[in-house]
């Protein structure tokens, strides 16, 4: 039985080095290896795309690619092809870095021995195969865990439904009068049903986080609205325990760039904890103000007069499945997922979370979130282009419903998909898909800032309409889309004007146009 010759692609621009390697392979016999030699990365990419390469030998200094970029590029074009980098003696450290980027091994020029070469190749191929297998196993395991948890949560929710239904039937006296004691006991059952339900929800949420399926939609968001909502929601639970729950919100707070649903979720977890760990007659307070150390952030504080956290635990409480070691302080243990979920949600919105605490006095949880700033969002594009005058175009995409009003549910469900489609239509360096600008009436609006003139704007708009027409979610949900573009009045940077002032000037003009577009829809929906 003869094995098929191993297809080697050698990417090497140095003729001498290439000849040397070619000789080595020739000595192994023509049936063992078949060598293809190219000089540039661009040629290598074409060969790799054909898919017949068994292993890639890659020089890290090519005319059209250099250093780790060569490895990244090759790996992104053909992740399934094992890769050995060839490097000079001085670059051994770099070669070691290359292994982190997906290379299986490295060879040092001048130190390649005849006999060692085929072995190195076969090792690399075998190592790559094992790595792929491990990755596949991991994916399978994650998928299994996903399916398992989805199944378990479904099975737990069904009996919980019947318990909830009949407890509330009794509590609402639909099955006759209750005495006070019976009423109290049923109240305890209901509280525990809700606890069980929130545990199931937490489990599902964490599974989603780990599978990368968490939805976060950043937009212009009012923290004070979220605080008022969360405090109102938990006022009853606090009062029942004899705890005063209040909020202190600084006047004229700027809006933040965050997902309002997720902010409410975070606040509810923190306030729920504060109430849980604070004894009767204690107090919990939510505060919000501009962060003293950095005015581009707002800081949210949730403080309580509870049992506090031991100093060595203040980092660990954000770990997954962490539980307080002293059960007396917690009453009942939860799953240990609440603060872990908080930390994930805060981090994914560009913020930070930490806690300070004095045992037996109380704790303060701090969260920072970035202030929404249009100048900050558009500055990179303007600076990259050194854009001091000339065209800027705002492309407006509108998603509407045939029934005239887009429900909140459809908005959240479709937004992420639409944003992904739009992201594919923009030139990533020059155009910016802006976050949601807040409520926009009967339809949903998406804005793209493009550093281009009207003709460029028209091209982007056309591209978006084409993509949207073939985006099946939009079609199936029976939604309508339209895209228009508005060129921003010629803005010129004065010689005396700083870049910062210029960016702010551009931002305020763009804001004005966006406000006009939004208010147009507000009138339409009345």
């Amino acid at each position, binding site marked *: 039985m003869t094995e098929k010759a191993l297809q080697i692609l050698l990417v090497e621009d140095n003729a001498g080095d290439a000849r040397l390697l070619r000789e080595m392979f020739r000595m192994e016999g023509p049936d063992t290896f078949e060598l293809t030699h190219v000089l540039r990365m661009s040629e290598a990419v074409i060969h790799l795309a054909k898919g017949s390469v068994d292993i890639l030998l890659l020089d890290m200094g090519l005319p059209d690619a250099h250093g780790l970029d060569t490895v990244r590029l090759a790996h992104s074009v053909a992740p399934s092809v094992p890769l050995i980098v060839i490097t000079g003696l001085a670059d051994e450290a770099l070669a070691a870095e290359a292994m982190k980027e997906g290379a299986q091994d490295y060879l040092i020029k001048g130190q390649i021995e005849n006999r060692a070469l085929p072995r190195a190749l076969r090792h690399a191929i075998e190592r790559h195969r094992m790595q792929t297998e491990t990755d596949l196993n991991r994916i399978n395991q994650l998928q299994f865990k996903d399916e398992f948890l989805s199944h378990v949560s479904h099975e737990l929710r069904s009996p919980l439904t*019947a318990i909830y239904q009949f407890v509330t039937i009794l509590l609402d006296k639909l099955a006759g009068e209750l005495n006070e004691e019976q009423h109290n006991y049923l109240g305890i059952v209901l509280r525990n049903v809700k606890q069980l339900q929130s545990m199931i929800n937490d489990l599902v949420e964490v599974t989603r986080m780990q599978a990368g399926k968490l939805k976060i939609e950043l937009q212009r968001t009012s923290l004070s609205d979220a605080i008022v909502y969360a405090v109102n929601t938990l006022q009853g639970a606090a009062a029942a325990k004899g705890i005063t729950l209040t909020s202190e919100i600084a006047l004229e707070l700027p809006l933040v760039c965050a997902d309002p649903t997720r902010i409410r979720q975070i606040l509810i977890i923190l306030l729920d904890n504060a109430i849980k760990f604070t004894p009767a007659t204690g107090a919990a307070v939510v505060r919000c103000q501009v962060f003293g150390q950095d005015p581009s952030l707002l800081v949210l504080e949730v403080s309580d007069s509870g049992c506090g956290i031991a100093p060595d635990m203040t980092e660990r409480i954000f770990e997954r499945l962490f539980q307080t070691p002293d059960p007396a302080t917690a009453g009942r243990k939860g799953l240990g997922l609440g603060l872990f979920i908080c930390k994930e949600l805060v981090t994914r919105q560009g913020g930070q979370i930490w806690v300070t605490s004095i045992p037996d006095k109380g704790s303060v949880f701090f969260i920072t979130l970035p202030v929404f700033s249009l100048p900050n969002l558009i500055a990179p594009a303007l600076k990259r282009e050194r854009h001091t005058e000339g065209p800027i175009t705002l492309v407006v995409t509108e998603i509407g419903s045939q029934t005239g009003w887009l429900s909140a549910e459809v908005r959240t*469900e479709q937004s992420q998909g639409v944003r992904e489609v739009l992201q594919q239509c923009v030139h990533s360096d020059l155009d910016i898909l802006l976050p949601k600008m807040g409520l926009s009436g009967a339809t949903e609006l998406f804005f793209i800032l493009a550093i281009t003139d009207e003709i460029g704007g028209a091209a982007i708009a056309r591209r978006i309409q084409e993509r949207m027409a073939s985006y099946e979610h939009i079609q199936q949900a029976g939604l309508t889309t339209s895209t228009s573009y508005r060129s921003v009045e010629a803005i010129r940077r004065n010689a005396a004007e700083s870049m910062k002032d210029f960016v702010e000037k551009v931002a305020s003009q763009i804001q004005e146009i966006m406000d006009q577009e939004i208010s147009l829809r507000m009138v339409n929906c009345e």
Partner: protein
Amino acid sequence: MSNKKILIVDDDPDVRQGMHVRLKANHYDTFFAGDALSSIAEARKHDPDLIILDLGLPAGDGFVVMDRLKTVPSLAVIPVIVVSARDVLANKERALKAGAKAFLQKPVDNAELLKVIRQALGEPALTVRAVVHDLGSIT
């Protein structure tokens, strides 16, 4: 004015009974089906104003029921609310696309269930309130 009729399709008899007590107390008449097949027969028989539909059912599932309802003109117009223990992410969009008015995950809060039922039945007082609420949240 006679009570509105609601068909409850769920394979769990406890859940059916719990729903029945709650809906009766809110002046709705209820009918039941425990599987996909009989749900169509019961719908034909009672001509309900609304169907509350579970997804996991014997002899087909909730999606099959919705497809089947669409093929009969007199049943196609009946609003459907899906009430299921299944995952929201994987099923909500699909259910709405299949024609459901709403997707609620079990266990459903009583107030929420009644609100959605009233909306689906187009009962005027609450529809107006919902619109006011929607508009209020914009400004």
